[in-house]
């Protein structure tokens, strides 16, 4: 059982988390023309990298959504990034 560090709650067991998707995907601006290929790419294409990955995860109990960097082979957790921009 893995443990992930929620930026809000700290280290918690993996059952409390939900995988949301690979990080870095930008939703196409759908008010302009989006080709079928670009849309399909956005919906379905996954990098599925072997090794270091950046992924969006949700910690269900607190609903915090964050970026988790981890190694998809060794399962090592490499770090977390908050999505929220730091505000004064």
């Amino acid at each position: 059982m893995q443990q992930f560090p929620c930026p809000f709650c700290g280290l918690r067991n993996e059952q409390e988390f939900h995988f949301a998707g690979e990080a870095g995907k930008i939703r196409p601006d759908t008010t302009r023309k989006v080709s079928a290929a670009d849309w399909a790419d956005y919906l379905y294409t996954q990098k599925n990298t072997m090794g270091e990955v950046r992924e969006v995860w949700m910690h269900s109990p607190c609903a915090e959504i964050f970026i988790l960097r981890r190694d998809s082979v060794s399962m090592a957790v490499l770090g977390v990034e908050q999505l929220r921009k730091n505000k004064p």
Partner: protein
Amino acid sequence: MSGFRIAKGGLINREQTLDFTFDGRKYQGVKGDTLASALLANGVRIVGRSFKYHRPRGVWGVWFDDPNAIFDLTLKDVSLPNCPATTTHLVEGMSARAVNAYPSAQFDIKGVFDRFHRFMPAGFYYKTFKWPHWHLFEPVIRKMAGLGHLGSEIIEGYQSEQHNIRCDLLVIGGGPAGLAGAQAAAQAGQSVILVDDHPEFGGGLYRRSKDIEGVKPAQWVARQCRAIEAAGGRLMPATTAFGVYDHNMVALAQDKGFGLAPTLWRVRAKRILMATGATDRPVTFANNDRPGVMSLDGALEYLARYGVLVGRKIAVLSNNSFVEPAAEILRRAGGEVRVLDATQGQAKALGNKVLHGVEMNGQRFDCDTLLASSGLTPVVHLWRHAGGKLDWDENLAAFIPGKAPDNMRAAGAANGTFDLDNALSEARAKAIGAPVPKQKSTYRITPLWPKPDAKARQWIDFQHDVTLKDIELAARENYASVEHLKRYTTLGMASDQGKTSNMTGLAAMAALQGRSIPEVGTTTFRPPFVPVPIGLYGGARRGQLFNPLKRLVLEDRHRAAGAALGEYGGWLRPGWYGARDITREVLRARNAAGILDASPLGKIEVMGPDAASFVNFIYYNTISTLKTGCIRYGFMLTEGGIVYDDGVIARLADNHFVISCSSSHVESVTAALESWRQDGNDPDRIFIHDCTQNWPTVTVTGPKAREIMAQLDLSIDLADFPHMTWRETRFKQAAARVARVSFTGDTSYEISVPVDKVHALWDAVILAGKPLGAGPIGVEALSVLRAEKGYIIVGKDTDGEVMPHDLGFAIPRAKKTAAFVGDRGLHTDNANREDRRQLVGLRVPDGAVALATGAHLVEKSASGLHSIGVVTSSYNSPSIGQPIALALVEKGTERMGETLTIWHMDQQNTATVVSPVFLDPKGARLNAG
């Protein structure tokens, strides 16, 4: 008779005798015995039958390394199947039966299989039963296969406890290395847990029968245990570490005694020291499966731990330097021992049912027991679970731990350090992270591996009857990879998972192909290390706790009113009240009013400066034009354009909305909203709160709804309260929200109040409704009411392909200019298809019965019938007076008036396509009052 109990010695208590039976015969053992040691002490040789040929099987090993002695056990009213006799401790009154043997291990009817062995080589089942179809043969084969019998009784109270603990250092294995390591670490100030699967610590120490660091083994063990506990360490005997999982989690199964559920401990260890020891490898020779052929280390252990000498005339067949001291120990205990060098010729076991002797190089030796060891194999399973690598050690002729997983080290025999003194210093150093002193091994071994093309049958896997010939066949048919070899021959797939057979099996494959053993490699090691009950993983998560239902605040009122409570979308809700009569409740709602507990209906608040643009993006429908105080029906889509949820949204203020999603979708919709809020928006300008359970809801629906509302203490001007609006007011001095919105097609009010006011509200509504003929209705009546009006339930009347324009909601798709979730997905080639399935109603001919939900609408084509749609909802409609149905049908809206064929379970009926709105298509009832 061969084995017997010696007069003294061992960790047993000879004073305390225990009676038990095996295959119906009475025996006696003593306190501290395992079933296997007790049977050996009684001279019992045959303890089971092999899986495929039903060959007689004797005890081979002494602990988890035994593949043969597997029993169905009964004690009073507890029966457990497939218990290993070597690791199950004897209890007074136990009754044991060998599995896979009928009527007993001694006389087995299916033993006749053995005569036909040449017809059943590896892959026999795959090759023989594939035509015409495996399923024809499967039931018979399954009956013949399998091991023990599962009792039909559930064991009362059999439920595993589960605990989570943490420590600096977890030491796995309480032999000399583990004890030394745990003591060193504990005294260095680390929090230490030491586990061992035996009830006593000491591991393989006892069988050496020598002093250790100046004292007797038992004294040394006690001294170490005291020191560990004195330094704050924790000792966990009778506890098996059966798996190492991600991020240093080790799972432990703690034995609680026969018939009691073991306890699961999840240990999160900063570091792990693996001191799991080593086991003996069998020697592969002719008829090496004869009862009486045993592990050499096992025999020493039976002697040291249980005071049992396994034979009187003993031959030892081996290839390493540990044999002579072993033979000497057995001699001192009273055995007549002869040592044979296994590397100097081909041995053959003699005897038909049990062993009578051994033949080698033309010479014959009479013996009742043959102790065979082709060397020690470190127990590296947990190392591999953790992702550690293995190295092949030529000098030890064994795989030993290589590149270590993070935070894990191996010491002692598990690390290939077979000399005791070396093991102690290695464990002490590794436990505290100190450098390990260089040391010399005294262990000498002449490699001894299976020799192919021998004539007689030589067993590799004793339980599954995999012989050297089977490995040869697999190699010939190119099942050469170890993973293929395993699955083709079933090598190592028995209940012992190849603990004795894998090493010899892959060595045989290496020899056959002229490759080295490390080139052939090992199969994957997976948890659990030993079989554990499935209930161990489940723990308390069973019955109601497996998936706890959400409960209504008003449950007591429903129960008092005779509600039939059932699960609806994760909630325990009234299906109906009193005797099941859905028609009565439907007509009550249509003629007077129905009173419904609608509390599970979603109430998700969205607020903040960006709330309006946010919900406009989330919804398929345009929400930005929704006026404060108004309600709109709409869909949420997936990005693919598929209908994900439907419901109403109310605007409470410019920057404040309440989303009323389907009852069963509240969590998933909330998560989806949160996802869009935090990933793509400024989370400080939008706030989302699921308030579903803060606002229980009572719905009043029907022509008398307004009359009932007028009697409630709500201070609302009902004359100025049109359909699809809402009012914020007070009920009994508390906040109340009233929405005029309908899921039935009749005038409806949804009244939401705080939890502590809902009983008063319910009682008031019931009281006001009674003289008018109104009363409570359940979810079943609601399902009929909404279908009569053509209102869909997402997930029932829609599936993973339905888009809003299939349901008649096409305008936003064509007109909405702002971006919204799923927008582009609504304009793919697939979304634009002409032959999409669309929602329609179906009417059956006069006098016909209701259609089956799930029935197909079919059309004839060149190749026969094909489906053009499916019935999604079907009821006898009390309001219409005949059956109605909703369906998704290809080009449904173009087919109005067409009569279609309905196919269900080989029966064909007809139905006419109509509008899905059966009741009040103009909405007069909806807007009444």
